[in-house]
């Protein structure tokens, strides 16, 4: 497939890539430990949020990056996931691990049912349809008695008697909670990375990208765009549902306006676009940059005489605009990304890498 000259180069690049990944993993695993010792669990929460948003970003990359469809309302699946797990815990005493299963199942089924009919809508019309679903979900969430409407659902606090039980119910006392949830988020993030990589290199990945590049052309070679667009969104739904379960047990309560908040849709998208749309590591890069900045700014600028004046968000907005104007294809499209030997997409060799990154996207 590749010319002999290119093959050793790719192997060397790959070795560098593995080294970088392993280093990153070690850092990620070790990171919270000194923090835990010093007692500043705040930074663990930041790490937790980084991996949570990075995971959601990868999830969004299925429908947005690979399949190229504008989905502005993936947060409804965060809500379905959170509520399913919460209901299972409240009414049937299910452990959150089983809650994951239930949440994903319910969310994927709902996603398939409501997305398939709207796949006939193209481009911006599809985007508004996803927003429409979100707008319809809001009053439903606020008034539906089954989920207690706007009064919210509370996970009963049952302090665990031992580590084993705690790991099953995920109820941890204050000091260790941050640590455990950090690792849960990290673990789920890694699982999502594996999922993305697997899908990217599978028939699904090829078909998604074909639909993204030219839907009509894809149909002409036998790809049913309705089925595959729905499949992409279902993968997104599964990841968001997972995020919802994590959030639900971390917050110990689910409120409709919180799980349906626009931030859950916008932030993962922005992290992904910042890092590089459709790229595996885009969401993580974006999340590492944006989330701590937001937290740090809100901690420093947000306090003091100018508190509540939104100064931190102003700076946040300026940064976002700056990156959008300076590097619209995302930070990973900078040539230095090649240094880490990251193979951009299956089959595309190093010769193509430069062209992928520098080719201007056509309107």
């Amino acid at each position, binding site marked *: 497939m590749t010319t002999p000259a290119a093959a050793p180069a790719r192997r060397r690049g790959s070795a560098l890539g593995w080294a970088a990944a392993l280093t990153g993993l070690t850092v990620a695993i070790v990171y919270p430990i000194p923090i835990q010792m010093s007692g500043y669990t705040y930074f663990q929460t930041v790490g937790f949020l980084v991996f949570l948003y990075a995971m959601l970003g990868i999830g969004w990359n299925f429908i947005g990056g690979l399949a190229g469809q504008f989905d502005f309302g993936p947060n409804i699946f965060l809500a379905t996931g959170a509520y399913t797990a919460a209901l299972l815990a409240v009414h049937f005493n299910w452990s959150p691990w089983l809650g994951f299963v239930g949440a994903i199942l319910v969310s994927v089924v709902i996603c398939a049912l409501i997305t398939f009919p709207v796949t006939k809508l193209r481009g911006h019309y599809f985007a508004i349809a996803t927003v429409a*679903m979100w707008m319809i979900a809001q009053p439903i969430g606020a008034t539906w008695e089954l989920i207690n409407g706007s009064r919210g659902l509370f996970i009963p606090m049952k302090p665990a008697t031992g580590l084993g039980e705690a790991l099953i119910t995920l109820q941890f006392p204050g000091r260790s909670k941050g640590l455990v949830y950090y690792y849960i988020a990290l673990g789920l993030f890694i699982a999502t990375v594996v999922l993305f990589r697997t899908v990217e290199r599978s028939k699904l990945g090829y078909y998604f990208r074909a639909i993204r590049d030219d839907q009509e052309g894809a149909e002409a070679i036998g790809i049913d765009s309705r089925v595959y667009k729905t499949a992409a969104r279902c993968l997104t739904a599964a990841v968001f549902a997972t995020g919802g379960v994590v959030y639900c047990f971390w917050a110990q309560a689910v409120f409709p306006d919180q799980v349906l908040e626009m931030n859950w849709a916008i932030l993962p998208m922005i992290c992904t676009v910042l890092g590089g749309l459709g790229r595996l590591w885009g969401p993580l890069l974006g999340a590492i940059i944006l989330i701590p900045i937001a937290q740090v700014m809100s901690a420093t600028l947000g306090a003091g005489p100018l508190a509540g004046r939104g100064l931190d968000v102003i700076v946040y907005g300026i940064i976002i605009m700056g990156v959008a104007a300076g590097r619209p294809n995302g930070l990973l499209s900078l040539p230095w990304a090649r240094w880490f030997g990251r193979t951009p997409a299956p089959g595309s060799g190093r010769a193509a890498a430069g062209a992928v990154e520098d080719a201007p996207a056509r309107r």
Partner: protein
Amino acid sequence: MTELLQAVVNGLQMGALYALVAVGLAIIWGLMEMVNFAHGEFMMLGMFGAWWLSSTLGLDPLIAMVPIALVMYGLGVVVYTQLMRRVQRGDVFAQIFATVGLLLFLQNTVVAGFTSDYRFVSDTVLARLSGVNIDLFGIRLGLPLLIAGLIGLALFILLYLLIDRTEIGLSLQATSEDREAAMLVGIHPRRMFAMAWGLGAALVAVAGVILANFFSVYPQVGLQFTVLAYAIVALGGFGSILGTLIAALLVGVVQSVTVVYLAPAFKDAFVFGSYLLIGLARPQGLFGRF
């Protein structure tokens, strides 16, 4: 029956104002296909402008419309030439990115300068007419809202004529269809895009000025209108200014009827539900070109 008609008429009046809110987006997004998450923020700036001019200089909103429109036209042009023009190089998602940043920036600059307190424009010409009604076959038309709706409609028609009947309008349409071909006949795409953004911002800001007569003014007011405007433009169909008007009127009526007969909490849900139903039957919107 009268009650239903009353609801419909009220809805039409609001719809006329929605049309003005949405038409700016119809130009930027529907015609030039550029996403703008900060659309509602331009409107919010118009509302704050009206409040500020009223409270410091005593200018009535109906007069303040003119300077505000001019200033906001300039802002729209600046936003395009400094920010959006560079973003056009990338994916459409980059436009989302950029305009979300713009949204955060504009909204919080206003928060920083004025706090999030709710404010009201008081003692306006229209407010003084409040309580004056026209009775038409048992339907009550409040004069302030009626006048506001008519002004909105008039501006809308002016804009429609501009786009559809003048050479500038045709140049805009040409640029949106095929940028390169437009260049070949001497049209300057960059100027067209800048003008589109200027017009879009000015129009929605003027809508804000008018709405300031009736709604409270606060920095976060924009988002709900942004979402509504998107639904209206998509419902009306891309590329169709007239479609935006019809869709806006429809949305106003659906909202109004929902509030009267069903649950007020669901008024937006019904609007978007209607969008889905119509969208499934007619994927390109009511009058869409694409």
